């Protein structure tokens, strides 16, 4: 009875069809036993040129896609001027944003004992650079000491999967790090969690925010821990 064993038929091919001309135009390359040069000259020419354009255009498209993802630009004059304008706008925007976040976090850490300065001028309206897709970042701090958190993200970091490693002391020393920090996806954005252990040494702790996909820096996270 074992002679009637059912076996799987031999597959017609064991490798993917990798010739796009064969796939698209049904133009098979020289088959087994056939002279490679037997194809008419005009077929070889047109197929080779089509193939060449396909390869180089795919390459250029891939390069453009990667360049856009990395935000890579050269040192051209236009790029430099654009950089300066963007940098100025970003600095102004970040400064006003950062002060606001600092104040809110200080207030949180001090149990609402801090009041905003009466004469605090509203943040100057700044023409925002071309805004990336909107993304909401929530910051959750668990600390028994006064703590300020500054998250400085590149504009193109919105919507990316981010991660942050343990924060190092800003003075460059080898003292205690601030290890319990994370960035996790949250509804419509992300949540930055910072936990400062009790009696943690006062000081400023910094770390890079990394884009998980490209592994490129996407910003910085800075935490100032006050004296208990």
């Amino acid at each position: 009875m074992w002679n009637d064993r059912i076996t799987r038929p031999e597959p017609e091919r064991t490798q993917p069809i990798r010739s796009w001309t064969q796939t698209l135009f049904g133009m098979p390359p020289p088959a087994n036993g056939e002279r490679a040069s037997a194809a008419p000259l005009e077929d070889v020419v047109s197929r080779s040129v089509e193939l060449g354009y396909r390869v180089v255009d795919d390459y250029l498209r891939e390069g453009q896609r990667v360049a856009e993802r990395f935000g890579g630009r050269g040192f051209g004059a236009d790029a430099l001027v654009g950089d300066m304008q963007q940098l100025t706008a970003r600095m102004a925007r970040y400064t006003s944003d950062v002060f606001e976040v600092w104040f809110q976090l200080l207030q949180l850490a001090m149990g609402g004992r801090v009041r905003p300065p009466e004469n605090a001028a509203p943040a100057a309206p700044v023409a925002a650079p071309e805004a990336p897709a909107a993304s909401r970042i929530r910051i959750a701090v668990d600390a028994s000491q006064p703590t300020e958190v500054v998250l400085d993200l590149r504009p193109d970091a919105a919507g990316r999967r981010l991660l942050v490693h343990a924060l190092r002391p800003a003075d460059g020393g080898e003292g205690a790090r601030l290890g319990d920090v994370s960035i996790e996806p949250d509804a419509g954005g992300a949540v930055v969690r910072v936990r400062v252990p009790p009696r943690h040494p006062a000081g400023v702790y910094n770390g890079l925010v990394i884009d998980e996909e490209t592994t490129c820096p996407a910003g910085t996270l800075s935490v100032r821990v006050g004296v208990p």
Partner: protein
Amino acid sequence: MSTDPVLALLDEYGAATRVALCDYLRPRAPHRHLYALVADYPRRGGRMLRPSLCIATARAFGATVEDALHAAVALELLHNAFLVHDDVEDESDARRGLPTLHALHGVPVAVNVGDALILLGVRALIDGHGRLGTRITMRLLEEAERMARESVEGQAVELGWRRDNAVGLAEEDYLAMVLKKTCWYTTIFPSRVGHLIATRSDGDLDRFVRFGFFLGAAFQIQDDVLNLAGDARRYGKELGGDLWEGKRTLMIISLLRAASADERIRLERFLARPRRARRAADVRWVRSLIDTYGCLDYARRVAHALAGAARHEYEALYASLPDSPDKRFIAALPSWVLSRA
């Protein structure tokens, strides 16, 4: 001087580059195991295609020879660095008619010499700062980094094919590898850099990728053909060396497709062996099979087609420029790369 527009400018710009190159090849310590050897490959000669294309492109767009000379020297130094490293990686025996550097002095010394040539190439680009300014120098360094990255990526692909005994390759795989491994540093980079130096503007540098790809691919296929069917005295490298090294050339890719089932099995076994385990009789068998199936003729036809596309891309890039010896040189290159013996 030659009346051929290509040979005439190769002579002229090659000579100018060689003179400037001397500044970087002067004897100094440590001499015996480094700087004497750094000068070895550059002094063996060479066509000077890359520096000449760079200078000609710069001049065609309005620059002077002097503007492009540091970049031309850098190209030649980087080219020689790649040759030293490639010879080690390919286990090649001969280069420009003489034993390869690692065959003469051992792999560790040769790798270090290659490293030194790369650094000298970077130095040459930096030395152009006084003439070209900070921004263009930075752009040239950026372009050099891109070129080197593309080249090592292409080399990695080809080495991987040999290491893993890839036998299911298609022509597009070969062309994509050649685009990175050969075209970027042979034709794309010299053209882009020449344009950048002359115009001080990035413009649309991607246009030079298309032109450089078709020109460089035709050049590489013709080089592979010469490796099998060239004039042994003029070729300079080991004739048939690509077969000994198991390189996946267009001829081998088309042969793997055209061969009968039995021949293919034997061919795959041959390709799977390391170079030192390959026998002369097997190399002769593969070579005869290439003739049997017309793979050399097929590769020549593909090279001609790609050279035609290069000429088409040339028209799009250079048509608006005034006539000049440099423009005629570039126009003649697609035909010239095919006429090399």
